[in-house]
C-alpha cells in the first residue's frame, strides 16, 4: 500500500527529507512495523528508530502509539517529543 511519510525537526535533519511517498511491502501494517522496515535502509535509520531518542508518530494528524494501524493513503509523521509553548 502507498502512504506519505513526513519528518519534522531533528528527525527531518537526520534523515534529510521532509516528506516522501512510499509503497509498503505486505505485512508492514503498523507504526512499529513501519519503523522496522525504514530501519532496513541503513545505519542512520536504524539509529533513529532504535537508538536512545524517542520518536513520536502521528497518523492523519492524530498522535498514535507504536501499535497503531497504517492504512492505504495515510499521512504518517515521525517527530521528536514536542517542545512548543
Amino acid at each position, binding site marked *: 500500500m502507498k502512504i506519505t511519510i513526513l519528518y519534522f*525537526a*531533528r528527525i527531518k535533519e537526520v534523515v534529510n527529507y521532509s516528506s516522501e511517498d512510499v509503497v509498503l511491502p505486505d505485512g508492514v501494517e503498523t507504526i512499529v512495523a513501519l519503523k522496522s522496515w525504514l530501519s532496513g535502509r541503513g545505519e542512520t535509520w536504524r539509529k533513529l528508530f532504535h537508538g536512545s531518542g524517542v520518536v513520536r508518530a*502521528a497518523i492523519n*494528524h492524530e498522535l498514535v502509539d507504536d501499535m497503531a494501524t497504517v492504512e492505504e493513503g495515510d499521512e504518517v509523521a515521525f*517527530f521528536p517529543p*514536542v*517542545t*512548543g*509553548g
Partner: protein
Amino acid sequence: MDTPSYPSPGYLNISVQSEDFDIGLELQQLKAATPQAGALVNFVGLVRDMSVDGKLNRMFIEHYPAMTEKALHHIAGQAFQRWPLLGVRIIHRVGTLAAQAQIVLVAAASLHRQAAFEACAFMMDYLKAEAPLWKKEIGDFGEHWVEARTSDEQAKQQWKLPG
C-alpha cells in the same frame, strides 16, 4: 482553521501564525465575545534570553501545519468539557523569533476565577506535551533543538481523570 473535534459551547478562536500579537487587543476581543465573563486568565510565554548553552540570540519554531491547529482545537475542546468556560483564545507563533519575543498566548474567560485559572493551566500543560511544535535555540554557541522536559509530561499527567 479546522473544525473543533469537541463541542465548544462558548467562543473559541485559535491561531497559528508567524506575526506577533497584541495581548491587550486579544483580551479585549475575548472580553467582547464573552459579555457574561467575570474572570479572564491568560498565559503568555516569552523567548528567554538564556539557553542551557549560553546567551540566546533567537529561536526558530517549527511545526506540523496540518496538525497544529487540530491539536490546539482538541486541547481547547477538552477544556470546554471539563470547565464551565465562556471563551478561549489561543495563539502560537512559528518561525524565527527574537529573544524576549512573545511565543504563545492562552486565555480563558469564565464566570468565576477558578475555572479560568485551571483551564488555562490545563491547556498550557497539554499544549506543551501534545501540540506538534519544536523549538530550536540559536546563539553564540551555535544552534540546538530544545530537549523535551519530563516535567512537561508530568504536568500533563496530573490532569488525568481517574478511571
